[in-house]
């Protein structure tokens, strides 16, 4: 009797979790498992029967020369956006971390691009590049394959630096003002205070921000798809875009899914390594 009561209680507790867990299993976990299964086939996405080919797809991936460019593009985009968004975000946060007239308006303006959809960001910037740049006599970066990826980086930096600013600002507000005042009295200059007071206090913010934009950069897809369709000459094809092309337009699901699964593993390892390194530094300081 007592045991039954206990089971009933556990069941009631579990019923709180069940909806979110079932939804998660259905939308994420089951497709993930099915996706891994497809990597052992040469399925085109349409045939009713799966034809197993063993590890052939995995061997092909390591000989696929077409992969080099998307990897390079993704690395470039990720590095540029992670560095630029965090540096700009932190710089602006330091600049607005002070009461003066209009500071709230400036913060609001810098933050507002975040509410615009990626589709519209791409389209607005396409016309900024074509119309505004031509007024200044500049060429649109999206036309040249050497600068096209940077053109997309600018879109992302424009949209997301405001969020980085807000996160760093929240961290700065956490620094007790006595510590800064004490440092000033001790004669520390701006750089010394920045290195020895501000940075250690912002450690949790770094641990949050850097992996956030690392993951976002590695997944970048929308800008390539909307603004440049991967071109010119594949110069803006990212890994996510490459995988998409194999899954839908090329109908090579087996191969596309293989690249996707390997890429997933790479992303998880990278994110974990980076997060752990940042955490370790956080405690050392």
């Amino acid at each position, binding site marked *: 009797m007592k045991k039954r009561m206990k089971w009933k209680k556990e069941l009631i*507790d*579990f019923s709180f*979790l069940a*909806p*979110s*867990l079932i*939804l*998660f299993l*259905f*939308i*994420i976990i*089951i*497709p*993930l498992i*099915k*996706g891994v299964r497809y990597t052992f086939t040469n399925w085109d996405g349409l045939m009713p029967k799966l034809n197993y080919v063993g590890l052939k797809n995995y061997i092909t991936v390591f000989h696929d020369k077409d992969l080099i460019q998307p990897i390079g593009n993704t690395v470039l985009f990720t590095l540029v956006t992670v560095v630029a968004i965090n540096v700009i975000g932190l710089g*602006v946060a330091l*600049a607005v971390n*002070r009461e003066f007239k*209009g500071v709230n308006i*400036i913060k609001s303006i810098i*933050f*507002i*691009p975040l509410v615009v*959809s*990626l*589709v*519209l960001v791409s*389209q*607005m910037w396409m*016309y*900024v590049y074509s*119309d*505004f740049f031509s*007024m200044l006599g500049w060429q649109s970066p999206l036309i040249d394959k050497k600068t096209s990826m940077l053109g997309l980086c600018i879109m992302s930096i*424009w949209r997301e630096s*405001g969020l980085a600013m*807000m*996160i760093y600002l*929240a*961290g700065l507000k956490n620094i007790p003002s006595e510590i800064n005042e004490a440092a000033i009295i001790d004669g520390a200059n701006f750089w010394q205070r920045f290195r020895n007071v501000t940075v250690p206090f912002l450690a*949790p*913010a770094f641990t*949050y*921000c850097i992996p956030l934009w690392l*993951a976002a950069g590695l*997944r970048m*897809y*929308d800008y390539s798809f*909307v603004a440049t369709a991967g071109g010119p000459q594949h110069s803006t094809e990212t890994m*996510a875009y490459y*995988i*998409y092309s194999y*899954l*839908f337009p090329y109908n090579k699901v087996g191969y*596309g899914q293989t690249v996707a699964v390997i*890429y*997933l593993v790479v*992303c998880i390892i990278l*994110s974990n390594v980076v997060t752990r390194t940042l955490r370790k530094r956080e405690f050392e300081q």
Partner: protein
Amino acid sequence: MIKTPKNRIIDAIRILALSFLALICLAPFYVAVCYAFKSKVDFAKTKLAFPTKLYLGNFADALEVRNFFDSVRNSAVVAVLMVIVIIVFCSSGAYIIARKNNKFYNAVYYLFQLIILIPFQTIMFPLYKELSTIGALNTLWGLCLAQAGVNVGYYVFLYTGFIKNVPISLEEASAIDGCNRYQTFLYVVFPLLKPITMTSIVLAFLASWNDFIISMIICQRLDRRTLPLMQFYFFGEYSANVSVAFAASLLVMIPAVVIYFCAQKYIVAGMTAGAVKS
């Protein structure tokens, strides 16, 4: 801070630099506004010069475009449903994870967090096939489920962090008063979660309203397209008439911007929640 001449100069530079930055932030909007508020002929002549008179023809044309209102309705329905699903599922799930705190619930919690690392492309095709077998392709409820499923991990994470700081004593008191767990959650805990619920409503709404890639694979059919998808095709089909496309985009942006200005503090609270602990 003492107002020495040096400090004044630094302040002046600071304000100048920030104003310049704010201008850059507004520039793309300015281009969109120029296109939208000038007639085609006018734009060809004056280009990006400040619009002197307000021409509303583009907006009238945008409203008459086939399936503009379909898309508005689709986006609104999906966003509202998705917000409800997220709030109900995630608040209750996070509550029990935070309170049970045993091996099983913690394992589920980490599993949820894993999604933050999964590129959508990895599950895109199998999910597409799965939804097509249950007849959820090109349906709004299918899209809503997919969006909610992809976001569930993040909101459970937000809620759990918040609930861990809510004192448990109130719940114990209500249990002594004879409330069962459902009543305790509904009448005692959920009202206390109001700040994080507001944040989640705003963020989830914006995520759904602006989502492109999930809509793109699930709702391709013309009368089922959401706004970002409509905008995407719109600029493609109307490349000769960008003014109308921008007018439509500005209309679409209004709800997001209104929400942003009304709920800025909730947005900031939610997005900085993970960063300023400890």
